[in-house]
């Protein structure tokens, strides 16, 4: 098994869902923990074993309880590890942090998390290797990192320990001081933030907080905050103060007296130079936040660091400087500094030594430059200081990579848009002329066999250009002409052109550029000499013409003439070839023409075309369709035609639209959209579990012919159990469990879905423990009527709890088909239980004999040390007599083999396909003992947690009753 671990772990990490299909998370977790405790496993393997816990703790430890248990296990592994196994111990600390935080143990203040925190703090306090020596550096660093993460997730946790953190940071001289500094700065920031939220807190409180050395503050953390209930200020705990537009920074009114804080900040700043760039940036960020919250300390304390930061080659440090500027504006940065910083950003955006992502980031920073006195607060606005002259450094060229080129084009478009506004002619200046020249160069490249990437980039650049300069007719008209020329040379670009037309129409509705482009394309296609037309070109032409035909404003006579020429010309072999796809494309154009507002004027040529297709096209399907269109055209009024062909909304044709089934008449493309199963945005249906059991379902209805009841009476001893076993020879016997649900609407109220028909429920397994579930059909579901009952039959391979993904396909009143996901269906472990299954008419004694028989087999199997699957166990709990009665009545009634008598009873759970769990409940004084025997030991943990759950339940009801 252990040889498999690297593979298994990597399988788990690459796709946890697929991995857990073949096992359950509890079993996997148990295996991992077991292997971790195994002394024979190497450290390397153990580190590997920790990675599932490190990366997917919520999958493996879904509850506080499991998290706590797992953490305790990991702590004991940690305690027993050899001191030399440093990487393992470090990874154990990380895994513990992940598990405890993600399973909400820390926010629930569990004992394991307290122990863990104490352990971390104890490790962290060994500054300068006084005790453990330099070899333990990595462990100490990791402990600090874990503490910092805990503080980050539960802000304020260490807010009463600032004195300790400060002294640790000051004492440490080795490279580890960085870890202490990070921890201290974060705790300081959180503590100051919490003070700002206290009413009336002032300088005194700040001083106390800085000198505090008490315990942990167990507040609410990231794991407990509810997304809907949180207010803005709660979020500020995790987020650095959203600087700038997002509102006011909370502030702490201290007066001028905060010497302690000031000296603390300067000592942190002084040492910032000693940190790595990343940590330095993080520290500065924290200090900016603290200072923003404590206005009494002037931000000028950063001034000494400023030049060093402005000159840096590290993106993270310069970014911090920008954020500093956003926070303090002119109280730290003069107008000169601002101008310098902006020029610097422009310079960096095209610096030959920087990487592309860095340059792109700097360009983004220019677009969101934190100005001292911002004029507008739009999404992307140019800083006033960015003059066209300065921006020339960033003009796009054909030597740029695609992404940089588009970024530059966007930036320069914004620059020249402003410049153009000053230009009275509205025709743009030299800058705009340059941009258009650039676009032309790209176009030439596309003409010359450019790569796909280049083509896409060109169309994106064109879209970007139009977005800004569509109003400059000189260029926009020229562009559409050039695009037409380009198209004739490279008809393969048809989808790109259609996409460009669609997008410009969406974004620039009033401009009419898209329609003009389409009109020009139509002209280009229809006026090109037919003699040069290839079949391949024709396919693309038809796509373009179909799109053109969607535009009511564009006259379609030319299109029709073109089609007539192509189809009817004597030289054309098209009709003879009978290419279905081509015919379909022609019909696609015709179909749109049928819907065109100028249909009246097109009547004759369109009828001619359709008739020609009907008579001469060499493909029956196309002929049929053409005939249908012809009939429709000649017999129906235009309104009816539109009604029949499509329920056309106000939106344009290409967008998703609701169709009736009459769209079947449409050609292929429309047909698919008409028959598409639509997707609901949210779950519309749900299954509500019914608690009642169906007695008939779980008992065999027939009386086994071979073994009439009287005969079995006569066979003594083991007879009962053999007869019982004999039933299993039929493979279908008791192999299923049936769960009942009501199918109802969810809370989402949409009258459109009030009446649903032909509902088909589909279930997908999420693990391998069950056979595939067959679909369930429900004739109808009306919101006003009683919900129908759904019987879900499950056939277990292994009797474990499971989760089913459910979805439904149904039809609404208007005939549309919909697909809607349902909430996952959880099948709990006790839902798999069936009572003892015996032929009808068996007496109670006989059942008891079966019980005893199985019990005996299991116990003897145990004592012989037989390695079968049998196991016995004992569960004890404090329960009074009455409580035991309630327990039995509430949970075991259905499974009783013998009635409750003097606090004793026998219970048998049968779990399909072949497992039994037998319980002997014995009450002694105020304790109940449940002796457990099972022929499937893997069920023990589940049985155990089931018993724990139900006794807990009983305890709590007893408590409530007692209170009442």
């Amino acid at each position, binding site marked *: 098994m252990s040889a498999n671990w690297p593979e298994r772990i990597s399988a788990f990490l690459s796709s946890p869902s697929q991995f857990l299909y073949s096992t359950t998370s509890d079993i996997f977790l148990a295996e991992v923990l077991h292997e971790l405790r195994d002394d024979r496993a190497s450290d390397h393997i153990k580190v590997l074993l920790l990675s599932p816990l490190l990366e997917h703790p919520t999958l493996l430890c879904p509850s506080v309880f499991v998290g706590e248990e797992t953490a305790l296990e990991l702590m004991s592994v940690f305690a027993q590890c050899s001191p030399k196994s440093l990487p393992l111990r470090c990874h154990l600390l990380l895994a513990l942090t992940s598990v405890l935080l993600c399973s909400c143990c820390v926010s629930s203040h569990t004992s394991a998390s307290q122990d863990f925190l104490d352990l971390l703090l104890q490790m962290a306090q060994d500054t300068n290797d006084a005790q453990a020596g330099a070899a333990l550096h990595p462990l100490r660093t990791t402990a600090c990192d874990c503490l910092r993460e805990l503080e980050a997730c539960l802000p304020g946790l260490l807010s009463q320990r600032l004195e300790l953190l400060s002294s640790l940071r000051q004492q440490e001289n080795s490279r580890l001081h960085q870890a202490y500094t990070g921890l201290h700065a974060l705790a300081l920031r959180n503590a100051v933030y919490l003070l700002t939220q206290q009413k009336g807190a002032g300088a005194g409180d700040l001083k106390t907080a800085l000198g505090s050395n008490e315990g942990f503050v167990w507040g609410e953390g990231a794991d407990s905050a509810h997304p809907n209930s949180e207010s803005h200020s709660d979020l500020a705990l995790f987020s650095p103060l959203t600087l700038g537009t997002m509102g006011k920074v909370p502030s702490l009114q201290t007066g001028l007296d905060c010497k302690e804080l000031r000296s603390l900040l300067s000592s942190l700043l002084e040492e910032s130079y*000693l940190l790595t760039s990343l940590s330095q940036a993080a520290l500065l960020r924290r200090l900016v936040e603290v200072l923003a919250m404590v206005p009494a300390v002037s931000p000028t304390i950063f001034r000494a660091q400023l030049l060093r930061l402005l000159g840096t080659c590290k993106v993270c440090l310069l970014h911090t400087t920008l954020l500093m500027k956003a926070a303090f504006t002119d109280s730290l940065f003069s107008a000169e500094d601002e101008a310098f910083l902006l020029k610097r950003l422009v310079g960096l955006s095209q610096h030959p030594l920087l990487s592309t992502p860095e340059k792109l980031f700097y360009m983004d920073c220019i677009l969101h430059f934190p100005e001292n006195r911002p004029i507008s607060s739009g999404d992307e606005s140019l800083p006033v200081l960015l003059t066209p002259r300065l921006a020339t450094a960033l003009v796009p060229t054909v030597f740029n990579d695609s992404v940089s080129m588009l970024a530059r084009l966007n930036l320069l478009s914004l620059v020249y848009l402003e410049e153009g506004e000053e230009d009275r002619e509205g025709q743009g200046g030299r800058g705009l002329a340059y941009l258009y020249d650039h676009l032309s160069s790209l176009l030439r490249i596309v003409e010359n066999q450019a790569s796909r990437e280049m083509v896409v980039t060109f169309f994106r650049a064109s*879209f970007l250009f139009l977005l800004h300069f569509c109003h400059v007719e000189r260029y926009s008209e020229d562009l559409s002409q050039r695009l037409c020329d380009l198209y004739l040379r490279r008809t393969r670009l048809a989808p790109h052109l259609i996409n460009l037309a669609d997008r410009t129409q969406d974004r620039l509705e009033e401009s009419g550029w898209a329609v003009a482009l389409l009109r020009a394309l139509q002209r280009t296609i229809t006026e090109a000499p037919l003699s040069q037309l290839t079949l391949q070109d024709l396919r693309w032409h038809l796509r373009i013409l179909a799109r053109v035909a969607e535009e009511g404003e564009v006259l379609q006579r030319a299109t029709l003439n073109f089609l007539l020429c192509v189809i009817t010309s004597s030289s054309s072999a098209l009709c003879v070839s009978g290419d279905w796809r081509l015919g379909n494309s022609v019909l696609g154009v015709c179909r749109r023409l049928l819907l065109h507002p100028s249909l009246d004027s097109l009547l004759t040529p369109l009828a001619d075309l359709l008739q020609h297709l009907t008579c001469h096209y060499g493909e029956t399907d196309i002929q049929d369709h053409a005939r249908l269109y012809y009939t429709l055209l000649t017999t129906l009024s235009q309104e009816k035609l539109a009604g029949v062909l499509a329920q056309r909304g106000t939106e344009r044709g290409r967008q998703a639209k609701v169709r009736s089934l009459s769209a079947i008449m449409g050609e292929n493309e429309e047909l698919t959209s008409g028959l598409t199963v639509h997707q609901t945005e949210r779950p519309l249906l749900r299954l509500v579990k019914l608690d009642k059991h169906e007695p008939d379902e779980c008992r065999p209805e027939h009386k086994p012919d071979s073994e009439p009841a009287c005969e079995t009476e006569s066979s003594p001893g083991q007879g009962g159990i053999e007869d019982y076993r004999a039933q299993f020879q039929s493979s279908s016997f008791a192999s299923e469990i049936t769960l009942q649900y009501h199918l109802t609407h969810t809370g989402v109220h949409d009258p459109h879905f009030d009446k649903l028909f032909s509902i088909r429920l589909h279930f997908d397994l999420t693990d391998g423990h069950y056979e595939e579930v067959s679909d369930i059909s429900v004739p109808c579901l009306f919101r006003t009527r009683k919900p129908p009952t759904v019987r879900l039959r499950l056939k277990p391979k292994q009797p474990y709890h499971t989760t089913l993904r459910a979805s439904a396909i149904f039809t609404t009143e208007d005939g549309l088909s919909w697909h809607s996901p349902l909430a996952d269906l959880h099948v709990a472990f006790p839902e798999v239980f069936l009572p003892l299954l015996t032929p009808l008419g068996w007496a109670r004694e006989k059942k008891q004999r079966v019980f005893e028989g199985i019990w005996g087999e299991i116990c003897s199997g145990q004592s012989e040390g037989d390695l079968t699957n049998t196991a016995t166990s004992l569960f004890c709990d404090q329960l009074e007599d009455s409580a035991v009665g309630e327990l039995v009545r509430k949970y075991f009634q259905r499974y009783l083999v013998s009635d409750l008598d003097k606090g004793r009873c026998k219970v048998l759970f049968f779990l399909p396909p072949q497992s039994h769990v037998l319980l002997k409940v014995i009450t002694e004084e105020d304790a109940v003992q449940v002796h457990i025997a099972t022929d499937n030991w893997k069920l023990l943990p589940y049985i155990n947690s089931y018993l724990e759950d139900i006794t807990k339940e009983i305890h709590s009801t007893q408590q409530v009753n007692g209170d009442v």
Partner: protein
Amino acid sequence: MSVRALWIISYERGESVAVRFSRRYPTVEQRAKCMAGSLYVSVPEDGTVLQLLLTELGLSDSDKPYMALRDDCLHQQRSPALELHVEGPSGGVLWPLLVISQGPLILACLAVVDAPADPRPPLASLFSVSQGLTLLAGLQAFLCGSGSKPDREGLTSRLAMMPSILLQICPLGTPLDIPQPGASSASAMPTPAGTQKQPAWKTGVHRGRAVVNVALTEMVRSMQYGNRNRQDLWDVYGTVTCKCEVEGVLPNVTVTLTLPPNGSPLMDVLVHPCVSSLDASVLTAMSVEDCDSSAFSGPYKFPFSPPFEPFRLCSYTSQVPVPPILGTYQLKDDDNQLCITVSLKLHESVRNSFEYCEAHLPFFNRDQMGSVDVKVSSGQLEVSKEKNLLVWVLGQKFPKSREVSLEGSVSFSGELPGPTDPLCTDLTAYIKLYFRVPDLTLSGCCVDQHSVQVYSSAKPRIVTSRELLSSEYFIWNSTGTAPVSSGHMML
């Protein structure tokens, strides 16, 4: 200021695409979930992320000429952060996914949005973005090693080190450092005895004789058009690399760059974070604005405390009055035969002593070369194996006249078509120069041995060097249309 997850993907065109390493940070995820509220989108499994990422990068389904999902012109990928559109019931937009790719490696990390998610905050306001970019760049440098392309075995072994590397530099999602070459052994360095704190970036302490090595490398770029309407362009950028073997926890070293009396100032100066202080005047000159003749022109002092490993102390750009080699290139099309005339002139201020100097004349969108009838006044001419490139090896020295020329004709009568290029069609063609001149800088910038100050007990040995290298040095055919390469041409 953390990352939610990290991926390392290898992508070889036409071959394999695979997630080679991934790491998720669940505690950061939890914070992200809390911040995003109802807009939260969980990170899908690796396979899904890979697919979505390739679509965003335009790399998926490379056999299909157009895919709406991939090629829509509405997708404007202008920033270094991508959006992943996750489908399904828990779907939505994952943003910002930071991506760096080099050669066959794609590195990506999902930065946490530590601000209210609606409306989407600008990228520039998210602290985690620059942190993520720095982390990715560091990992990339580590994985690719010294070369630009990682070798297979080297990459595999370095990928295997990722868990232990991340334990040091990003254990819980907050990047603390970038991988240092050879740093893993140094973590157990003893605590210094004195009161001086050891810098966190110092991975070792040198013992023995002090040696300071300062190397200045200048790269010159040029675009020459030989056309009155197009201004020729050239510029220089330089880097100063140091290796300092000096004793002490935080030794002080100062390196001073000086320019000749009439030298134009160093611009766009960027310094390593170990530089402890800077004079404001060092930073004032910038290439994006016109130079002021009275501007500060040195000496440029850089006081710093050196890291253990070699590092780039600073970099600069400079505008020099003349290009080192001025060239003309003329092509005439003559019935599937090209007449070529080239002349190159080495400027008199440049030392005539090259380590190597080559001129490459590639030809695109034509058949392979047939007969080559070309004469050169100096050096040798070679025809590449693929028969689409002339290599003119000029050797170590230009002749005394400092001028060389090439003349002749080439026919393109080969059997196979040569390489294609969308830019170089018709008579659009270029010469690219490759050269290295030791002990020279065009800006005149130099590091005087005596100006290097080391404040330590022992007298250090100081080694300085400088060199000039060509980079993107193009001479365009003046009879064809040449592409615009910079906005400065508009002015």
